[in-house]
């Protein structure tokens, strides 16, 4: 294994239609998606997408409908085969797997959560959650015990005997999440997992996912069309447009340094007070010390008041208004991690 990345996809092209190779030749010749559709009748799903995903992070892939994001996520577990390219997980090329190896990979290493849940309506919640283990041939008692544990973890204790249709959307998706976690996969693929839920439940599920992730440290690939969601949960965000990657980076990269007008438009509608978090603008303590070669109490005036890293700007505004320089920033354990400069905040808000 030469790379530090959990998942790398390299130069993925996906063309839907009768003659993909002709279409690919045209793409490489610089033709646009609509020209190719007109000339060859083939639909370009993905156009030379490459990305690398670190272990233990939430990597959000964002795009509007038709951007190819659901197609892309299905390449990670080969529900869709690319026309060309590589999908490398833990140093192995998933596309070279035999049928048996692919089954083994899907059973043990990667699980998926679906937009419309994809639960079996004829099975109980418990049987649904245990599905992955049933596929592996795990005896009933053992798989149901594990399924019960994970149902409890996602807050569904007591509904094991119900059928999916008897539950609300949010609860059904919790079953979907439990089902994905029961296999104890390294990688969790979430295809618009919360998009079908109403806003309140959606926000609850996002919080729960972040909570779980703190304990589990999975590598999560999360698809969404919702920028607020992407900014809230994504350690890294990739923006997809017409099957092409337009920008990859952290939430603050996207918000502060949009790569082009498309991304600018995209973030234009975002409520920056809510979307931008203290962490995005953080001036880290150690960095200041190294840079200046002196103490961190550099030329700027000493901070007044303290805030926490993951608070949105909206919550720290009152404090910030009361200061004319910067605020001290603490992490959840109460350790000083850096400063939030008023000037930076003003710049970010009125970008």
């Amino acid at each position: 294994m030469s790379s530090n990345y959990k998942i790398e996809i390299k130069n993925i092209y996906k063309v839907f239609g009768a003659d993909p190779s002709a279409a690919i030749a045209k793409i490489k010749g610089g033709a646009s998606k609509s020209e190719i559709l007109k000339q060859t009748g083939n639909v370009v799903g993905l156009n030379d997408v490459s990305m690398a995903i670190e272990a233990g992070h939430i990597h959000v892939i964002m795009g509007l409908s038709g951007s190819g994001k659901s197609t892309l996520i299905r390449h990670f577990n080969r529900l869709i085969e690319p026309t060309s390219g590589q999908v490398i997980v833990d140093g192995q090329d998933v596309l070279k797997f035999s049928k048996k190896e692919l089954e083994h990979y899907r059973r043990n290493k990667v699980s998926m959560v679906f937009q419309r849940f994809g639960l079996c309506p004829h099975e109980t919640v418990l049987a649904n959650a245990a599905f992955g283990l049933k596929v592996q041939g795990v005896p009933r008692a053992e798989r149901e015990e594990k399924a019960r544990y994970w149902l409890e973890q996602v807050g569904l204790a007591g509904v094991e005997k119900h059928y999916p249709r008897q539950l609300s959307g949010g609860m059904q998706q919790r079953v979907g999440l439990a089902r994905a976690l029961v296999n104890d996969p390294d990688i969790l693929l979430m295809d618009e997992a919360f998009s079908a839920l109403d806003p309140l439940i959606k926000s609850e599920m996002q919080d729960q996912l972040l909570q779980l992730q703190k304990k589990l440290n999975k590598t999560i690939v999360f698809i969404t069309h919702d920028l607020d969601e992407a900014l809230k949960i994504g350690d890294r965000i990739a923006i997809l447009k017409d099957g092409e990657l337009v920008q990859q980076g952290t939430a603050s990269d996207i918000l502060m340094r949009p790569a082009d007008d498309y991304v600018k438009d995209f973030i234009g509608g975002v409520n920056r007070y809510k979307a931008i978090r203290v962490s995005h603008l953080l001036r880290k303590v150690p960095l200041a010390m190294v840079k200046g070669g002196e103490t961190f109490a550099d030329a700027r005036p000493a901070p007044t008041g303290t805030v926490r890293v993951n608070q949105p700007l909206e919550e720290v505004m009152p404090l910030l208004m009361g200061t004319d320089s910067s605020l001290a920033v603490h992490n959840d354990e109460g350790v000083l991690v850096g400063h939030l400069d008023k000037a930076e905040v003003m710049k970010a808000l009125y970008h």
Partner: protein
Amino acid sequence: MFPEMIDPRVFRGVVDDSIEQFVIQWATSLEEFFYPFLQLLNFFESVLLNSPWWLVVGVVSAAAYASARKLSLAALIAVAMLAIGFLGLWEDGMRTLALMLVCTLVATAVGVPLGILMSWSNRFRAVMLPVLDIMQTMPSFVYLIPAIMLFGPGKIPAVLATVVYAVPPLIRLTDLGIRQVDDEIIEAAQSFGANRMQKLFWVQIPLALPSIMAGINQATMMALSMVVIASMIGAQGLGFQVLQGITRLEVGRGLMAGLAIVLLAVVFDRITQAFGKRAQAHLHTNS
């Protein structure tokens, strides 16, 4: 006059000869192959005929209750069965019931796997669709004649003809049912590493079950409409009574037997439909 391109007599002669050759070569082995069906049919017949009538009525209405969990349906089915007895057609009714049971079993054993194969392969489907059209529209006497040449008049060609006529809707509805299973549920099963058989038995068949049950229901109804023709080639039972009514111009006899066929149809229809509805129970309830 339409211009004559080929001599139809030559063509007919070729077909006649090859069928004759086929019969000479294969009659014995085919008869051996189908012998178990005959045994099964005889077994059902003797069980139904040797059991006391009240036991048969009881078992059939118990099956109705098991399928619907409704006493009203069980009672209706019991009344229908008793009515067949009151019409004086108990024995013929039992023979027809046995024939129906065997035909339904054979049709299910043949039709469901074929429907599954059709749903898997578009190529196989393209081949099967015209075959099914032919099976449904070709007048049954056309294939009854070679069947009688092979097996002689009797119950085997009767079962064959009935199954050929009754199985197409079951095959179509199985194919349709499996193709209509929600893609996302299939993808979910695949994403957990389910192989083809796990996917089939744990996801596709259970979710297609309402459609498959509708197919079995259709197959039984079509099979019942074949009993008169089946009786012409040696199957006994209600069809034979209808046939005698026609040939002897005894309208009363024909009407009574016809009524008994309708009553049997009601029995089969209600029981298979109730099974279909129960198969849907969890698929479409919202609470």
